[in-house]
């Protein structure tokens, strides 16, 4: 269960990083 939770944390971290990279790019293009 902890490994499963760790998997989810890793996946969520990846998704957050991708989302933040999109925000980074949008802020640059919009700015």
């Amino acid at each position, binding site marked *: *269960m902890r*490994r499963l939770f*760790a998997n989810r944390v890793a996946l969520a*971290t*990846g998704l957050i990083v991708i989302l933040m990279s*999109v925000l980074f790019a949008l802020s*640059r*293009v919009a*700015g």
Partner: protein
Amino acid sequence: MLPYRVRVAVWIIVYLLFILGPLFALLVGALPPARDFWTEFSVALGYAGLAMMSLQFGLTARFRYVTNPWGEDIIYHFHRQISLIAVGLVVAHPLILFAVRPELLALLNSIQAPWRARFAAMSTYSLIALVVMSLWRVKLNIRYETWHLTHILLAIIAVTAGIAHMIGWGFYLVYPWKRALWIGLTIFWIGLLLYIRIIKPLFQLRRPYRVSEVREERGDTWTLVMQPDGHPGFRFTPGQFGWLTVWGSPFKITGHPFSFSSSAAVTDGRVDMTIRNLGDLTSEIHKVPVGKRVYLDGPYGAFTIGNPADMHVLIAGGVGITPMMSMLRTLADHGDKRPVILLYGSRDWESITFREELEALKERLNLTIIHVLSNPPAGWTGEQGRIDAEVFRRHLPPPYADHEYFICGPNVMMDSIEKALGELHVPMSKYHSERYSFV
């Protein structure tokens, strides 16, 4: 101490800050003109991917406040999973650029490409080699020690070449303070690795141990009894482990993690490690001569005795009994009478490591032992097969979520026990696990 959920949340927030902080710091101050969305997006992925790769040095630096609240085995598991994601992000960076700006494909020609592109290629190829070697080490027939050394070198090359590529390209790192931030962070993370591999071994060289006894136990298992040589040793809490270097100096990549099996209540610095013959280094343990100088790096791990008010349920498979043995011996030495149930899975009756001593410990503790044998003798009336939710229901008093669970054993057993605890609605904060094959 903060509640478990809060500690987990703080850990994740700090982890994310280390990745996203340096990325968004790039947006502070005057900026060069923006390029198209996909170029900016791919650049952000590259920066974030490199920050995640650098963080791996921190994850595996064996610091207690990093491994808490997960446990060392889960940290290594997370290290593997997050590495795959980070490598994916780093590789996506050039792939997106090649898709939107095909003229950049010319940079793949390493002979004519500028150094900033060569560094990018070096970093990416190192990362790919690192992942391939890690995922298929056994299939590729690479020795653990060779793999470990190569793993460290490739990681350093990947991160150093990555930062060289960023600086070479300039753009977001034109300003000295931004360069200093990214270079400083990289130096910090690589410094952590050097601390583990050079500074700590230097300390260990001055704090050796001597093997004072090599004792045979049941189940093709041996106990190494070690005494500090010329120093007072270290204190550990029962359930923790150390990295043992038997052959060679602590500078060699030959340390292996083993749990301490002795009581933490001893005051002369003595440390026991009980090691089963599982092939490779462990098959040589019985040949270690008495008086041999060895090196111990420890203690590590958050797998240790819990709240005295809770019933402790210790679940051990095979040589997973060693940290439990340390807990039981320590509780006995402290005269601690908290209720403890030991569920102990073994192959057969004759291979139950510490069988006689466990029986003797029942006299000094409030201890119930349930042996579960996968190959029971004729006439055996006890539990047989594997430890599962049914075994829990037969031997543990409800409510199950009130107890504290400590699990140590082979991966297959750990997975099935964690599943069984889930079926019994035991929250994650109430169980602690340590896999002895986490590297």
